[in-house]
């Protein structure tokens, strides 16, 4: 073999580097993958222990309305209903408002104002949820109490807090997707005799539809999983909600209030793990939804 042939066929520092890189990144992927898998497996095993070890039927767990761990009553329906109620209500109220604010920012307000709004919204995105909970506790709950009587705690207060909490995130995502609509659409539409409002409602918003839906699902996923802020204002009574300003409890708030008071391995503790499993499954579903909606946008 002559020199050139050797050079071409034998390993060099570069090819070694390439190999090390590959090995390190593969190891990292395996590590993260197995961590995620471990969490999933652990949560699933813990989550189904109530049904396999303590002899409670899944159906009863999901359909009964009586949650009294001290009396071996494990009906999770009230929390499921409450969790979905606060999530859907917050999403339904936030979506139109988000859209109005985002359209105002991207299409109507002068550039200078936009420059003011956007950093503000991004700042709000980073505010920890406990702050929103505290706001709810000191402003929303007393206001509701004054307006409707009762304690003020409940689904409506939680909806208010979650609404405030997800609004900045949803708005900022919606602004991004409206900004991603090609500028030329606006010109082309105006050139066909459209007013600004017609252009917004017939071209710009429909073009950004997938992004807007993604923002909504993302916001609702956050609302569904939020524990602390909700726990501060919902009242934490694990009963079927009788009204919007009656003390109730969500999956997350029961988990955070209950987990310290139960002993690992008992049925009570297992029941909490089952609630956590529902949360996990729901967040997987939300992720899947986001994936589906935003996938469609590309095609």
């Amino acid at each position, binding site marked *: 073999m002559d020199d050139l042939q050797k050079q071409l066929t034998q390993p060099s520092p570069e090819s070694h580097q390439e190999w090390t890189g590959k090995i390190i990144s593969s190891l990292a992927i395996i590590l993260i993958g197995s961590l995620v898998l471990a969490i999933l497996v652990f949560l699933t095993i813990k989550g189904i222990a109530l049904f396999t070890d303590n002899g409670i039927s899944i159906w009863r767990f999901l359909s009964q309305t009586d949650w009294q761990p001290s009396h071996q009553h494990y009906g999770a329906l009230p929390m499921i209903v409450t969790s979905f109620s606060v999530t859907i209500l917050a999403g339904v109220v936030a979506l139109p408002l988000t859209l109005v604010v985002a359209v105002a920012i991207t299409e109507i307000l002068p550039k200078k104002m936009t420059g003011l709004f956007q950093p503000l919204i991004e700042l709000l995105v980073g505010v920890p949820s406990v702050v929103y909970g505290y706001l709810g506790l000191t402003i929303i709950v007393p206001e509701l109490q004054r307006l409707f009587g009762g304690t003020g705690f409940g689904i409506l207060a939680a909806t208010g807090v979650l609404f405030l909490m997800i609004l900045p995130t949803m708005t900022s995502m919606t602004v991004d997707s409206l900004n991603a609509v090609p500028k*030329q659409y606006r*010109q082309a539409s105006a050139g066909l005799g459209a007013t600004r409002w017609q252009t917004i409602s017939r071209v710009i918003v*429909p073009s950004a539809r997938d992004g807007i839906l993604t923002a909504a699902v993302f916001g609702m996923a956050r609302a569904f999983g939020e524990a602390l802020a909700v726990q501060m204002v919902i009242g934490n009574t694990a009963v079927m909600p009788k009204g919007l300003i009656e003390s109730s409890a969500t999956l997350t708030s029961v988990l955070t209030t209950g987990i310290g008071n139960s002993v690992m391995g008992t049925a009570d503790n297992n029941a909490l793990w089952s609630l956590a499993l529902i949360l996990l499954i729901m967040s997987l579903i939300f992720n899947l939804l986001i994936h589906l909606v935003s996938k469609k946008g590309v095609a």
Partner: protein
Amino acid sequence: MQVKTALEVKDLQVFYGDKHVVFDVNLKFPQHQITALIGASGSGKSTVLRSLNRMNDDLARVTGAINFHDVNINDPKVNVYRVRQRIGMVFQQPTPFPMSIYENVIYGLRLAGEKDRHVLDQRVEESLRQAALWDEVKDQLKSSALALSGGQQQRLCIARTLAVQPEIILMDEPTSALDPVSTSQIEDTLVQLKEQFTIIMVTHNMQQASRSADWTAFMHQGHLIEFDKTATIFMNPHEQQTADYLSGKFG
């Protein structure tokens, strides 16, 4: 030959903020003819074109008169939405909306409040035929316009403008983003279209101007230097600047 005037521009001045970019332009665009606006980059061709259907409203200050059917459409009181229905515009980049081909074509009609299915169907076929796109898309009217090729998309944009039945069509470099085959298809289409429409087109493509335009206006640094029959401009220009530009001495 006596030609009617479709649009008359008088003492047109345009300012972007303090910047004066179009000076004292006077022009009579002949009806049912193709007029090309030529000139170096930055000479104000697009600015003049956009003024003709008030697309400069948010960008610039435009003074002077633009007479259309004896109405000065540069008057602030004029309904710009109606003006743009009568004087349509096709842009450089093909910009079909992310909707079906059908929905794209009827977009302007919908805006104008047309709801009758028969009218819409009929106008879609008519406009697509006029834009020489019908045969290629008639079986996929419901599929997304974004799946069409660039040339097809531009012809769709032309059809979309035609569907509103304007009298004048403004085009700003309508083929500069397209390949030579699509370009010559569109040029053929334009020649067909002047039977029914008046076309005013900005182009950097001298062959295009000489092939398709009946009249040519040459602009230089915001001034209209010369406006005449295309043959005269290209073969026998009166102004030295025009001759210099066409022979490639500047711009």
